[in-house]
């Protein structure tokens, strides 16, 4: 179901979502560690070897030289993690050299007295290279996974942004076409009728003139309602219509709404079922009257001539339940919530003027009061729309002074 009628299919070009070119796949971008200047990484290796040597020098009094190789192996692992494979290999080679020079007898030269140490060197070098390679590989895998994760999140965010953008654009085009159509129709009627009256004043019969004048008045009111709805929605969305709650009589609010709808309702029967013991309820009367009016107008619009509209209000638990029920075509299953969306027009709405704002305004007003709205089909046909408002605080009835107390007033 398109948000607007088919007749008003959006003409405005929808923005074509442009997906930014993804970063080249395959290799991850250089990680911060490998991004480091090479001389820094290799310099780091030298520092690590120096640190290992310091520790080994401190330990050599208590440990045999082969045990000191463990310190250097640790250094290789650190270099592999911190700087990658190349610096790890450099660390291994340097370690062997320094270890031989400083700790293997004869000390302070590269000669080796015990050939066993050659095996130690060989093993040390191999282990260092293997550990270095493995560690570096692990690190790359880790970075790669991180990168993929970031990229997936980024793509997801972009996709969502684009979807939102497209939706906003669709809504805007639907609004534009729908609003301009609904503004133009009454304007066209008014222009036509007014020019007929002006140019054909002498030829038109009195009933025709009357009919044209009535049409102008009706269409002007329709325009006024539409503009009012657009303004209200804008103001409600901007938060400019914060409810000013007072203890109100629902009977009074409904009465005022019906009084204003009198011309539109004409002879339609309206059945009022307001609970007799209904207390004063905390609400913004002006806003709530607007919600009531929109619900009744909606019911009126979709009901065949002569079908009654029922208005019910009752306290249910700690909520006020306010309902407007009609005997119209009802609601298509699945549309119960969508009907309250802005510019959404129900499947049964085609052929009826309107932009799909009346019910959204009801919803916004209910929400501003901390309440909710629901829509459902009625047994026996038709729809029922309800506003549920929380009742908080003590009803004001008890706070109204008695007759006795006020007799002294002037």
């Amino acid at each position, binding site marked *: 179901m398109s948000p607007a009628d088919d007749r008003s299919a959006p003409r405005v070009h929808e923005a074509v979502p442009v997906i930014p070119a993804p970063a080249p796949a395959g290799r991850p971008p250089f990680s911060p560690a490998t991004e480091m200047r090479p001389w820094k990484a290799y310099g780091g290796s030298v520092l690590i070897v120096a640190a290992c040597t310091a520790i080994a020098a401190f330990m050599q009094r208590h440990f045999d030289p082969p045990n000191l190789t463990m310190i250097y192996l640790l250094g290789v692992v650190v270099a592999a993690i911190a700087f990658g494979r190349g610096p790890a290999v450099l660390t291994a080679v340097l370690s062997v050299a320094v270890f031989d020079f400083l700790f293997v007898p004869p000390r302070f030269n590269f000669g080796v007295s015990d050939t066993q140490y050659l095996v130690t060197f060989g093993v040390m070098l191999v282990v260092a290279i293997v550990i270095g390679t493995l560690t570096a590989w692990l690190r790359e895998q880790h970075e790669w996974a991180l990168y993929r994760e970031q990229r997936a999140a980024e793509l997801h965010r972009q996709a969502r942004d684009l979807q939102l953008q497209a939706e906003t654009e669709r809504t805007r085009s639907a609004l534009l076409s729908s609003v301009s159509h609904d503004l133009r129709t009454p304007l066209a009627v008014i222009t036509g009728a007014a020019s007929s009256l002006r140019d054909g004043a002498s030829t038109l019969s009195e009933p025709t003139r009357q009919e044209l004048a009535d049409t102008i*008045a009706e269409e*002007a*009111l329709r325009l*006024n309602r539409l503009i*009012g709805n657009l*303004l209200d929605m804008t103001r409600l969305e901007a938060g400019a219509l914060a409810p000013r709650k*007072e*203890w*109100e*009589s629902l*009977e*009074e*609010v*409904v*009465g*005022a709404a*019906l*009084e204003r709808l009198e011309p539109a309702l004409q002879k339609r029967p309206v059945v*009022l079922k*307001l609970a007799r013991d209904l207390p*004063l309820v905390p609400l913004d*009367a*002006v806003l709530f*009257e607007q919600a009531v009016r929109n619900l009744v107008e909606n019911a009126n619009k979709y009901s065949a001539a002569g079908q009654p509209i029922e208005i019910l209000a009752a306290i249910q638990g700690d909520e006020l339940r306010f309902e407007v029920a009609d005997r119209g075509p009802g609601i298509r299953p699945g549309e119960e919530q969508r009907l309250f969306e802005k510019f959404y027009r129900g499947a049964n709405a085609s052929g009826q003027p309107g932009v799909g704002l009346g019910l959204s305004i009801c919803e916004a007003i209910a929400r501003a009061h901390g309440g909710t709205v629901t829509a459902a089909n009625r047994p026996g046909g038709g729809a029922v729309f309800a506003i549920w408002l929380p009742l908080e605080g003590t009803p*004001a*009835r008890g*706070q*109204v*002074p008695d*007759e006795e107390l*006020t*007799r002294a*007033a*002037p």
Partner: protein
Amino acid sequence: MNEIGRANPSASVLLIEDEAPIRKFLRAALEGQGYAIVETATGQDGITQAATRVPDLVLLDLGLPDVDGFEILRRIREWSALPVIVLTARGQDGDKVRALDAGADDYVTKPFSMPELLARMRVALRHRARAGDDDPVIEVGRLRIDLAGRRVTLGDDEIQLTPIEFRLLGALARHAGRVLTRDALLREVWGPAAVGQHHYLRVYMAQLRRKIETDSARPEFLLTELGVGYRLRDG
């Protein structure tokens, strides 16, 4: 509002409105009803015209570009009680209340229909003519309110009202056809200390309607102007 009676041909109206199309149609419609129109587009000139021409009624647009509408109202009220009806934009209930409290006799909301405006003008002119001699009996359809005799009848039935209910109905009856702000009613019925206690009115209006109206949710006599006040329907 039911019939558009011809006005007293000598009734003159000062129209202070900056929108030329609105002046144009009001002049045409009001002259058609027998009123003499003086129009002006600025508030400054409006204040001068009101003082020099002394019209029978002023139609004042609240949204003038040069002088604030309330200021004009205040300046006119400094020297005169002549009836002023303000023209307001939709949704500005606060402005309506302010204008009424500042001494406006009534208001119409743009866009308004001519019968609506003419009805308000007739009520305002009639109250002006009657000012000073309080009519002790007010009749609205089948409802008859005898202020001096403190009796209210609906058709042939006498309605029993409590003192508060009577004071409330009496206040509305003395201004029959005109809107009374909630605070003005509270002041008149309960005294100045009650100003702001709007829920008093809701409780007592409900009681009053139950006694007078056939269907209190669709009142015939006691009309609610939401966010502004109450009005006893005229004629």
